[in-house]
């Protein structure tokens, strides 16, 4: 099977097992530039593993992942890391901000890892923080800001390199509904304005509602809800 025409990132027949536990069992996925796709499913269904495979964080046992026409699953670790640094962005539920760096340093970190000089990196970081309405937190450390503010800082960080794909794994999982809504609003708005595709892993329908399309993962298999409709 070939990836859908015009797709930026697509996966076919992905299989991945952790010991005796099968996490993915023939899962499929595709996303177009600027599209927001929600990956839904109950706990333990394999949705995070799918995200990790798509992002090149883990390699699948079998199957194919193509990004912009390139086969991801056969790339070296160094090339996948470089791809993640320059073309992908990430937002996680927990533990993503470096506690000892200030918020602006956290946001500037991916740019600095790419070799951007510090001042320039921090200038760009501040601009993104302003878009996410957290520029007043620039000199604070993550431990000094609220969960919602921290998550917005994390979104700013995920977008600062101008990624083509943003991976968000339960980005509102640790937030109350009001904060969650605001984060999703800012995240999708910023992603769309930057024409970034968003792979959104969530188990909450109200979060998935921000997406253009939903994929449900159950027992390691995926079902495209749009196609089913």
């Amino acid at each position: 099977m070939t990836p859908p025409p015009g797709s930026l990132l697509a996966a076919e027949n992905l299989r991945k097992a952790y010991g005796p536990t099968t996490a993915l069992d023939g899962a499929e996925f595709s996303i177009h530039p600027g599209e927001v796709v929600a990956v839904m499913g109950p706990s333990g269904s394999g949705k995070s593993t799918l995200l990790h495979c798509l992002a090149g964080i883990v390699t699948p046992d079998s199957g194919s992942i193509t990004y912009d026409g390139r086969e991801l699953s056969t790339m070296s670790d160094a090339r996948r890391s470089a791809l993640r640094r320059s073309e992908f962005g990430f937002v996680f539920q927990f533990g993503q901000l470096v506690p000892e760096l200030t918020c602006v340093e956290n946001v500037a970190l991916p740019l600095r890892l790419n070799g951007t000089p510090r001042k320039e990196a921090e200038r760009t970081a501040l601009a993104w923080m302003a878009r996410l309405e957290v520029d007043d937190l620039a000199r604070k450390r993550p431990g000094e800001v609220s969960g919602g503010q921290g998550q917005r800082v994390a979104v700013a960080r995920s977008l600062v390199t101008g990624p083509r794909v943003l991976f968000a794994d339960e980005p509102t999982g640790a937030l109350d509904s009001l904060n969650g809504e605001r984060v999703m609003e800012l995240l999708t708005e910023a992603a769309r304005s930057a024409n970034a595709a968003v792979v959104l892993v969530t188990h909450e329908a109200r979060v998935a509602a921000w997406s253009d399309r939903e994929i449900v993962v159950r027992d390691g298999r995926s079902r495209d809800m749009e196609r089913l409709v």
Partner: protein
Amino acid sequence: MNLRQWAADLRLGAKFAFTGGREGWTRVLLTAVGVGLGVALLLLTTAIPNALTVRHQRDEARSDYTYSQKVKPKADDTLVISDIDTTYGDKDIRGRLVEPEGPRAPLAPGLAKYPAPGDMVVSPALKRLLDSGDGKLLRERLPYRVVGTIGESGLIGSQELAYYAGATDLARHINGWQTARISEYGTPNPTPSSPDPVLILLVLVVFVVLLMPVAVFITAAVRFGGEQRDRRLAALRLVGSDSRMTRRIAAGEALAGSLLGLVFGTVFFLLGRQAAGELEILDISVFPSYLNPSPALAVLVAVAVPAAAVLVTLLALRGVVIEPLGVVRTARPARRRLWWRLLLPVIGLALLSPMIGKGRSNGDFNQVLVSSGVIALLVGVTALLPWIVEAVVARLGRGPVAWQLAVRRLQLSSGTAARMVNGIAVAVAGAIALQMLFAGVEGDYTKASRNDLDRAQIQVQLSRGTGADEAVAKLRATRGVRAAVALADGNLGSTSNRSPDGPKLSSSATIGDCAALRQVTALPSCRDGDVFVVTGAEYDTDTPALAKPGKQLYLDTSQGMDTGREVRWTVPRGIRKVAPGKDPSGMEHGGFLLTRGAVPAGAEQPAAQVYVSTDDDVADVREYVRNTAASLDRFANVTVWTRTEESKKFASIRTGLLVGAICVLALIGASLLVSQLEQLRERRKLLSALVAFGTRRRTLSLSVLWQTAVPVALGLLLAAAVGLTLGTVLLKMTATTVAVDWASVLTMTGIGAGIVLVVTLLSLPPLLRLMRPEGLRTE
């Protein structure tokens, strides 16, 4: 708050300690090992004064005081005893020849009865040596049959080499210094045990230096698995326990480890006590039974160490807010103040300063002042270091990402880093001070020998009656001997020794063959029968008046021991004058030089000194010479000359110190590793997230290296400064010239830096494992 609630909280904590899964058990075991090491070390240290006292008492109890001009009459309660100590390799052997003269002769401590002539009783260590292949040459020297062993009460150490051999005809050799008749053992004037003040200094410094790393290890151990414990404590808060209760429960967990540590400590102490019986340091060994800490001190240790472990836990929780929702936040640390941190080293120096210049011979050091001063100075390192680390890292500039991550981490929690490095700093400071002290004291003890080692390397002192010619012949025939010459001394008086006031004028006579006399001074020519007179020798005023041909003098070769056996001697014609010179031992000979043919018939065979030149390439040449000397004369005293005296002993102490320092630093390295791994585990999710968005593994590894290296570098700088200061003060206290031993400073700081590298290298595999994407999984 009632006691029952306290006990219940502590009990609950103790229960958690053992039911906390693998991490809980690991923490308990690490704490127990740390506390155990501390307890064992303290118990051993508190037992040392007692051990030294027992040694001193036993040494006095077996003393056979032989120095006496008065000879006791023979009786049924007397014993003739000869001191025939010898040396084998670098080991001294206490040897005694004994001949009881009656049934009530005093029995030496540790003996059931005296061995018969030709038999000997030996110490267990000597028996082992004689039975081993290493003792083959010694076996030749001690040709007696082993019939028993000396009991513990007759020895001053488990590794002491000693024997009592049965002999006959000893009374003939009573001479007031080597052989004597005694009717009791023991010192006539017992002295209280007064250890060398330098030794006390060393023990005190070693004590502090060793204990500090153990404290650091305990600190690291109680923090192990902290994340899991924090979650548990938060859960307790959720079900209603208040913050004080939570802290008591945490203290209970630490107390469980400490109590187990007490058990470990007792076992370690008993094992160490047993092992101490096998050791010999500075030629001092002890029996395990000597190592008994005083009960009061033991109780103090048993209470103080677990209490300290609990205190460390509570201090570790200081600034930590445990909330019911599982959130554990570190409060923003207060800015560190410098003034009280500087007070400690200043107090230390103030306490030590009154003792500067006391010297080592009369060094009546006030032990309380010394120990307090040294402790204050070394503990000052632990107080100053956090301030220095904080002050310096706050000023560190920006750099690459790895550097930035490390510096920011240090800025956020410099206290943790400083705590980790404190142990290394104290150990290095202490070791530098000790190395300096040793280097200085070594110079004090190791004086350049005045012996001329180019002419002879061994001196054999024969007893009266042993033929010098035969001795020289046999020694020359000994394997590895290049040359041997014998010189004997006599006294020449203008009148007889028996005259009421002794001789009015006297001079010395040196007797030997021409080859031997040429070792004393340059002779124009020499034939047997020639006599020479030395003119211009130091302190020699009478010789010119005596050196007149035809003058009748009295020659006494008994060296003052037998004043009836002098013979008359007439100064011959043709006596030649020679310049004064020194024999190989460095002694200047004045007076008359007599070849053997010039000694009048009837003169007693004098006690000769044989100077032996050896080929050092022949292994065991010294033992061959000692064996030949012993076969010639059982009272012969052999001295091996070295360029510097005692140097070997101090070299081995310094090597021991280096090995000890490495062991201590390895222990601290282990603590550093435990803390490092614990920190990494706590940051598992963060590390995975950083890798997920493309952070290079090299960047994270480098940041771990910087994170350890920066505080260690600061710690080593401070340690070097404090170590050099303490070393200088200690040297000034012992009135020794201050000289910095840069080699040891570099070695110690190098080892400290090496520990950082090793810890970083060892933490890399777990770091790489923790960076795996599995860390991102939440299900």
